[in-house]
């Protein structure tokens, strides 16, 4: 099930997105689903009564902060100004198989959750610990073999 966020909660969520990823504006309606997950939908979609689920899951609360899902990075990633890591075309297959990325110390990245992209293709989130980016793709979305 899901619920509409009140103005205070929404403002807090937007502030956190701005602080972590530099996302200044969220162009979709955001609703909470369960305790820790958030979904993006259209204004018209949340007006439907008896809705079991609306829109798509875009992010969730984790001990490390707000983690964007694959769709979350695809919807909000283009608006992000920081903590976005660009990978090469050759690295996409490994990332999608669930491999971590060794990158060493990087000034442009803060430790914690980062968005992964290759050009215009957004590929979900990873956790940067100062040396490598741990792969956080869900099992169902990884390429097998």
């Amino acid at each position: 099930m899901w619920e509409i966020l009140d103005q205070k909660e929404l403002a807090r969520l937007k502030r956190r997105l701005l602080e972590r990823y530099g996302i200044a504006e969220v162009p979709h309606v955001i609703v909470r689903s369960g305790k820790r997950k958030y979904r993006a939908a259209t204004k018209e979609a949340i007006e439907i009564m008896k809705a079991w689920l609306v829109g798509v899951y875009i992010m969730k609360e984790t001990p490390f902060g707000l983690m964007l899902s694959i769709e979350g990075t695809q919807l909000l990633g283009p608006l992000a100004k920081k903590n976005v890591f660009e990978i090469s075309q050759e690295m996409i297959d490994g990332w999608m198989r669930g491999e971590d990325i060794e990158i060493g110390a990087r000034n442009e990245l803060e430790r914690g959750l980062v968005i992964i992209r290759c050009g215009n293709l957004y590929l979900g989130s990873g956790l940067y610990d100062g040396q490598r980016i741990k792969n956080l793709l869900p099992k169902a979305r990884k390429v097998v073999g």
Partner: protein
Amino acid sequence: MHSIIRKGLIKLGKIQMNSNDLNEIQSSSQGPISLNHKRKLILTKENLKEEFKKRYKALLGLDYDKFIDCLFSKPPTFIRINPMKAPVKWLRQKNWEVERVAWYKYGYKVIKGPENIGNTVEHRLGLFYVQDAASMVPPVALDPRPGERVLDLTAAPGSKTTQMAEMMRWKGVIVANDISMARINVLSSNVQRMGSINVTITQLDGRFIHKIFGKDRFDKVLLDAPCSSVGEVRRNWSPLIRWSLRLVLRLSKLQKELATAAFIALKPGGKMVYSTCTFDPEENEEVVQHLIELGAEVLEMKIPGLNARSGLIEWNGKKFDPSISKCLRIYPHCNDTLGFFVCLLEKPERL
């Protein structure tokens, strides 16, 4: 041929099983084989149900053999590109051989591509959906526009829902309904993967949808009704095993109930597509006739490049409204796809 290789090829559907294979399986298996399983293993063009053969010969006439040959052949793979996630150019960069589907600009036939197309980076990221080209026709006929309020009454697994969401540029809303929770789980994971933010999922009995949402609520309605699925046989043989006239008549009753609810929920001046993936007239023309009796008007469809037969205006001595000839019967052998029946209707303003 070595028996292990032969068994493997049978399992993969590359060769047909004969009675020796069946005896061997029966003698080596731990328990008895179910009747359905046995039927599936020994199903051939010749041993189809007599009732089915008689009926489909009457429906198809001289094309019957072509139709049956096609049912027993492997269908090509088609994909639908998600233009909302990435421009189509990624497809050109891949080393796949593809051919565009004539009636949907984001539909492609994969002539040469990866063996398991579902286990590719692009599929996992929702850049495309594996969907038969004939199944792309109902949304094309309905033509949902950005900002509209659309009802997809029996939405799972979500191929047409997500196609319509993309045609609407993720604006407005699609109420994607299904009665079964197991099917809704598949629907929601497809909606998620394709990123369709304008979809709202409901779990309601479609026959009573108008009682929940009210009369005249939707700009457009798609009813891709549950059916006997003969058009799906190229992909899955079980409809051919399950098929019976009794089943067809039972489904026809359900389809009329769903169609009535869908039609009531449609706004006056709104459009509705009724489609099935089967060819029995009781599940198609008879349901459209029922909608005409409720006041619906059948509209002409312009689907470029699609080879289809017209809807029947007479079956088994029963006469239908002549406008039903505007419906499309998309037989598998006509376009080398799966099979579909599609009808576009309008609810007149006066209703």
